[in-house]
């Protein structure tokens, strides 16, 4: 390894990167677009348009509807007069939820009988439907409890405390803001995307332009060439990281709870493995198009398998295992750990070891493939 040769390569690569306006433009616009897109893409199911067929039209039924609305999941848009109208609203997608209150609702309540209320949900989107259904059941349970207490009081009996009380606390993200989960994920996904593609760009480009042949006859060693090409990309990756963090803070108020320094240090382990992946892809591809397709083939599933959008635990076990080979999986643990939970190295070391291990494997494979021969 010669420091002079390495410096020459780093200098050349830096000059070329800085002159490549299009790539730099993508590095800046991509995070903005992704953050805006995914940042507002929440998994909350608020303000669902609701149609109500209130056959009772009494004060009790009004209390019931208000209880639904107070959860913020239901927004009553339509007061319908029959079942057919309700069906029509649901069919057309004008309403996602239908609530049917029977004519004898108030009478049954006063008589201490069971009053049935029907909640119909458009379950085309199963995930949202599941949330709405459980909220609806909750509303029912809560109301029943209140009514029971009132009934007992009216009869002059003492109320008994609930046998089981479940108290909930949302740790790390008390306001349950989905951006807190999504934004660090986008950060990792963008970094993985840009670093891998940049690596492919700077390595395959030489082969396509024919400059590779000229490089091969020089005394440059493969490791020097690789390192010289990668170091400027690491610097660019850090600039990108800083930019995204600033953007996430300014736009969504997502701050770094843990140590910023630790985040930067551990990101190096991620760069190591994602740049290695890019290098490996470049060495097995002849053209940029080929390499880019291969990268898409690897990156797209890796984003889904890493737990970027869905919890990894909900995937079937074989897919979870595949996800273990994806650098992003570990990096997401690291950034969510530092950004959201504010934990330190004591909680993150298994992920760090995995990242470094993956990096060593892909780089070793890349160096074996990266021969200074034309054929």
């Amino acid at each position, binding site marked *: 390894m*010669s420091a002079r040769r390495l410096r*020459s390569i780093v200098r*050349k690569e830096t000059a070329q990167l800085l002159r490549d306006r299009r790539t730099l433009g993508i590095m800046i616009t991509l995070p903005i677009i992704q953050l805006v897109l995914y940042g507002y893409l929440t998994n909350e199911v608020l303000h669902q348009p609701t149609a109500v067929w209130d056959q009772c039209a009494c004060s009790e039924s009004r209390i019931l509807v208000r209880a639904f609305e107070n959860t913020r999941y239901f927004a009553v848009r339509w007061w319908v007069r029959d079942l057919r109208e309700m069906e029509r609203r649901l069919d057309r997608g004008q309403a996602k939820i239908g609530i049917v209150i029977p004519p004898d609702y108030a009478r049954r309540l006063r008589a201490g009988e069971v009053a049935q209320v029907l909640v119909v949900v458009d379950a085309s989107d199963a995930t949202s439907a599941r949330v709405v259904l459980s909220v609806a059941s909750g509303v029912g349970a809560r109301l029943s409890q209140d009514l029971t207490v009132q009934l007992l009081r009216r009869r002059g009996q003492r109320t008994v405390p609930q046998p089981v009380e479940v108290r909930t606390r949302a740790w790390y993200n008390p306001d349950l803001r989905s951006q807190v989960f999504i934004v660090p994920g986008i950060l990792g996904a963008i970094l993985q995307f840009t670093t891998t593609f940049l690596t492919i760009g700077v390595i395959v480009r030489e082969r396509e332009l024919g*400059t590779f*042949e000229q490089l091969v006859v*020089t*005394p440059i*060693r493969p490791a020097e060439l690789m390192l010289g090409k990668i170091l400027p990309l690491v610097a660019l990756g850090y600039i990108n990281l800083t930019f995204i963090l600033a953007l996430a803070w300014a736009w969504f108020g997502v701050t770094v709870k843990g140590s910023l320094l630790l985040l930067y240090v551990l990101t190096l382990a991620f760069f190591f493995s994602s740049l290695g992946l890019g290098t490996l892809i470049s060495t097995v591809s002849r053209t940029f198009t080929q390499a880019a397709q291969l990268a898409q083939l690897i990156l797209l599933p890796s984003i889904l398998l890493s737990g970027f959008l869905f919890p990894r635990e909900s995937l079937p076990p074989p897919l979870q295992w595949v996800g273990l080979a994806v650098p992003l999986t570990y990096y997401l643990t690291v950034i969510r750990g530092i950004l959201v939970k504010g934990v330190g190295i004591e909680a993150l070391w298994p992920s760090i070891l995995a990242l470094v291990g993956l990096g060593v494997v892909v780089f070793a494979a890349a160096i074996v493939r990266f021969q200074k021969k034309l*054929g």
Partner: protein
Amino acid sequence: MTEVAVRAENLTRIFDGLVAVDHVSFEIPPGRKWGFLGPNGAGKSTTIRMLCGILSPTEGTAWVLGRDVRREAEAIRARIGYMTQRFSLWRDLTVRENLEFYGGVYGLWGAELRRQVEAWLEHAGLAARQHDLVANLPGGLRQRLALGCAVLHQPEVLFLDEPTAGVDPLSRRQFWELIDRFAEEGTTVIVTTHYMDEAEHCDELAFIYNGRLIARGAPEQIKRTRMPGVVLEVRTDRLMEALAACERHPLVQEAALYGAAVHAIVEDVAVAPRLLQDLRASGFAVESIEPVLPSLEDVFVALVEAEEG
């Protein structure tokens, strides 16, 4: 100094069953301008690439500056320069940045690097455009820049693979002046070319055809000894008709236009009076018919035809 700059022994390369270079052997003494001639696909570039150690020989081997290209390619690299057939500098870097990069990877540094870069910029007439992007440079200047990148570290052996392909005649001449200067300073120059006028610049030539060496020697020597037959230069009026008449003549093997004359290849000088008589009889105002030294092109064409025959 080694006695032989480059030595090839049964150098062979097979690509997927296709023999590109077929048991080629030669020796090149140091300080020579060695020309490698042959049609496209004859195996010139493949041979050069093997000599530079970037392509493994299938069989045989070569020594460059006494080192085996199969096993010691890395040791050879610092002492040779190579200019590829395809223009291969970075268009998004400036003239100076390209030179500095190559100087740097060959171990030049600081003041020495600056001195060498300045010297070449001056030498090659690139000083005024040193801060221009290569993308904006005309072909002739690009070629000189590429040469500079290959010679900045003062290599002992310089490989040039069709360095003047697609360059205008004036630029070609300036380019060869630069090459001549290297040779004078003791660099061994190995150059492949299509252009016969460039071949005349070389101390020694090797003709390669279908992967095999079919002739070797100094240009004069090749012209004198390797021509199967005699070239008669026919100076006459109505050139095109005279050419057709020569081609039809039973004693002429081959005829071609050469400048303002017809070159007719015959078996023996004794044919000349007979040809003169016949042409005059056909009404041509023949000025003279004289045996001349064949051009390299004549020899080359004749050799290739003999191979194919």
